[in-house]
């Protein structure tokens, strides 16, 4: 099997896996980065979202071989060193999580949004977040937290 070298959260990781292995399972099974969650396996819920060079990707359908040399992956564990990214602080301030399972993916989608559009309007937040499922229905607070974070970036 080929060996893949990945830049994740400013560290180098290597994995000896088949080329079609979705990044999700490389992160979870091989690197112990379990903050990236499995929800559907078909890119329909967003629980598995990470940043690839600042853009959101769905790792459950993103083969590890698609990642090019030099591309930087950021997972929820690496969004900030001390858990103090404006989105992480806003998520706590607004008290978003219920069960909490989807929230890592929600935060990563929001991070990609704020990377490209630091002051999004309501409709832009909804457009960006609409593809992410929160089964507990915490959507109101997710929206509020993204807005709050955007005022602090």
């Amino acid at each position: 099997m080929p060996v893949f070298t990945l830049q994740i959260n400013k560290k180098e990781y290597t994995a000896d896996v088949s080329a079609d292995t979705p990044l999700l399972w490389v992160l979870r099974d091989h690197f112990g980065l379990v903050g990236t969650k499995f929800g559907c396996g078909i890119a329909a819920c967003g629980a598995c979202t990470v940043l690839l060079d600042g853009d959101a990707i769905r790792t459950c359908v993103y083969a590890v071989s698609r990642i090019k040399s030099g591309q930087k992956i950021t997972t929820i564990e690496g969004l900030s060193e001390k858990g103090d990214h404006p989105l992480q602080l806003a998520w706590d301030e607004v008290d978003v999580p219920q069960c909490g399972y989807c929230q890592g993916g929600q935060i990563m989608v929001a991070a990609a949004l704020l990377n490209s559009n630091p002051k999004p309007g309501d409709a832009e937040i909804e457009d960006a977040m609409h593809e992410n499922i929160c089964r507990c229905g915490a959507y109101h607070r997710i929206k509020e937290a993204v807005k709050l974070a955007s005022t602090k970036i």
Partner: protein
Amino acid sequence: MSTLNKTSRRDFLKISSLTGGGLLLGFSWFSAQAETPFSITEANFAGDLSFNSYLSIATDGTITIFSPNPELGQNIMTSFPMIVAEELDADWTKVKVIQAALDTKKFDRQLTGGSGAIPHSWKKLRTAGATARYLLIAAAAQRWSVPSAECTTANGMVIHTLSGKKLGYGALAEDAAKIAVPANVPLKNRKDFTIIGTATKNVANKDIVTGKGIFGLDFYREGMVFAMIQRPPAFGTKIKSVDSAAAKSMPGIIDVVNFKNNVAIVGKSTWEVMKARKAVKIEYEKDGNLESTENHDQIFAELLKSDKAIIRRKDGDVETAFKNAAKIVTQEYQCPFVPHNPLEPMNFFAHVRPDGVELVGPTQTPGSARQAVSKLLNIPEDKITVEITRLGGGFGRRLKYDYVVEAAELSSIIKLPVKLMWSREDDMMGGSYRPAVKYRFEAALDADGVMTGYKLRGVGINLGNATREHNFPAGAVPNLLIDSVEHISPITTGAWRAPVTNFLGFAEQSFIDEVALAAAKDPIEFRLSLLNKARTNPAGAIKYNIDRMETVIKQAAEKSGWGTKPGVSQGFSVYFSHASYVAQVCEVVMNGKVPVIKKIYAVSDCGEVVNKSGALQQVMGAVVDGMGTAMYGKLSFTEGKPEQKNFDEYRLIRMKEIPAIEAHFINNGIDPTGLGEPALPPTGGAIANAIFKATGTRLTRQPFIDDPVIGKLLQGY
């Protein structure tokens, strides 16, 4: 995590080291009577003390409580410490909660479900906190040689106001442990609450937003293998033959084993297992009825006419009431099967060793799971440990423990520690659904528009009693007949958030609106007049609280400005479930021909609100869930096979579809009565009633987007 076993000396030392010594108060979390907590010391621990939880105060001031209930998003890990800290006058952030592993000897209600965690813990936790406070004051008074009555407490310290002396709880803990525990320590007056009722953030937020591995699926153990199971794709089929040769030779695959109707693929990584699973060739054959959704429609029609219904409640003389009626209103309502769809799919870790079994994962019912594993593997329960992780949602699905038993059985066959994971497709196709159901309501009105007769027939699939026969409007109608018939199907069903009431609430509250319209009464006035009748001239037993229901109705009318908003179509609904009362008003505004759900008001009486922020989450989440399910939720079948398999085919509500939600609580000082479920049952009816007012179309079948007249207009995004 730790297990609190039958009070051995070893256990005591374990607890002491875990909690840092000091004061240790044992109490019975779920026993029926409010017992006096007692101090546990190394000396008296030799005896056979009976307790199932403890509150400890360590010499460094750390306060610990030992909680039996699984956490699945209802936020008890935050609200339990708030309750203790309130009575103790402690800094609640210094109160740690230890999630207890399973111990059925100690916990007689170690499950999460039925909106019961807070109601069952309320008095126990308060009494434990108040008792600890009493002992700490007594210890300080002794040390200072002053009367206890001159001492007070604040923020984790005992204070002697006259001399200005202060001591922290940690410094007093060891002395407090030597003082006799009194009975009947008074609890605080609720007007003095400073923590209970505040909006307090979830203690797990930090772990959640930084991606800590706190869920069942995040559990990894050195040397464990990964497994998935191919189950029959259709209800009513079984395995005929399996060819797993190709799968077995694939990279990373350790074994492919068959047991019961399962083919388990076991490998070294999740992805290798997923790939090999596709290479297993399985033939299935018929093993029961292969039912389709059309068959169910036919079955429902027959059961509505059946003479074999079980009578659930009968008051007065229904036949005569309908014979003498000035007007009769009849309507039928139907709801489909729906899966629970917790975002974390079913999974469990199991290691069956010669000397015992280790189980780790997300479950709402650890006790039943262990019992079933014990029975299946013929291993005594005391050799089986169950460690409970945080649950990535439950909604009732994890009350069933099928996936726990599967993991244990597989581990016993392959003799390896294994983590079993269900895919989303496995989860959605794997059963335990909310049952499909149909209702027929009939109401008899006299010439003045007074409801004199009421009939309800509930027919469900694998749903014993599709009614809640003692709920409103029972007691308010002199002649009433409620009965039900069940169809037994191979499609498996189970409890789904607010069982029965999640669809009955929609049907009943839609029907009451139709009756109000026929009686030419305002929907709220009509409901209030029924309640008044139940109060002044009750028919049969009344098992709901008329005052509490009336209060939420009136408050919802007031908060929503009922009937005062031109251009806004308001729909009303109220429901009593899990001992709480919730009234809702849905507001719909027409955008051309499209009815748009703009806002939902929810007024809840769940008794005392412990955590305002958590309570708001429960209400808003339940309204969103109730709306999403009513609007979009449907699992249909062709010859026993579910037609929706993942979130591309099964529609869950998403951000753009949610209306504004304004939630209020009744501040009446009643002990807490549950909130995980009660805000869901009224939502479907409030929406249907508002849409009727806006469009004239009566929605009688969920999901609403399938309505033949206006379904297409409700599709949204």
